[in-house]
């Protein structure tokens, strides 16, 4: 069972809240202080990506964040509800939306997948899985498991 679960309306303003919660729980879970900035940035990237996807395809659905203190690992999972079917409106294709991210038109020409690239550069272990319901980004960092 997750230590903390959070679901929030897909609004950019809430991404900061998600970052703060994730950092606080990581600290309590015994993640080293030197890694907390990485946790904060990676969680922010994953949540930003999810929010942008939701705003395009399913604004009424919440973004879900799960923070789990495992034995020696602090695990974060960010789950969006952008089902592949929802990304492909009949005959229109998915404008700016690919598995790697969304909203490329506002990204200064950076590839849409840059958020994923940043996450992979920050977290020790990153697993991205797509299901019929949406995409899940799972990432983890070492922890001392000091607090439960």
């Amino acid at each position, binding site marked *: 069972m997750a230590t903390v679960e959070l679901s929030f309306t897909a609004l*950019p*303003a809430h*991404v*900061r809240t998600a*970052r703060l919660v994730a950092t606080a729980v990581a600290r309590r879970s015994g993640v080293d202080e030197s890694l907390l*900035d990485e946790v*904060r*940035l990676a969680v*922010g*990237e994953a949540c*930003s990506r999810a*929010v*942008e996807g939701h705003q395009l395809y399913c604004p009424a659905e919440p973004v879900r964040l799960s923070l789990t203190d495992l034995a020696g690992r602090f695990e974060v999972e960010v789950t969006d509800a952008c089902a592949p079917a929802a990304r492909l409106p009949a005959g229109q294709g998915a404008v700016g939306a690919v598995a790697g991210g969304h909203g490329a038109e*506002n*990204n*200064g*020409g*950076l590839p849409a997948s*840059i*958020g994923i*690239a*940043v996450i992979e*550069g*920050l977290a020790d272990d990153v697993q991205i899985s797509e299901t019929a319901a949406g995409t899940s980004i799972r990432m983890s960092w070492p922890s001392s498991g000091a607090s439960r």
Partner: protein
Amino acid sequence: MDLKLDHHSKDGIEIVDVEGEIDVYTAPRLRELLIELVNSRFYQLVVNMEKVEFLDSTGLGVLVGGLKRVRAHDGSLDLVCTQERILKIFRITGLTKVFGIHDTVDEAIAARRAEK
């Protein structure tokens, strides 16, 4: 902390002072300011990020977008940043090769002058 933006001219270069967090929520305000400056014919920009506490890929996209806009007018956009946690995201994404990143505003201005 929210985002605070200010700008002023120094030695003919427009210095943009950024303080706080640049993320998916606040980045549009920085984008608007950079567009406004370019529309006002400020093509030599230095973005001072010494008081930036957080920067994500959305913020990077805004900076890259600003760079493209000033370069379209033969301009420049340099950065001032010494914070390791902010520099790290530039390194991960390879953008240290795209931006001139300096330790101080004066150093950024001097580097720009030297290139002219």
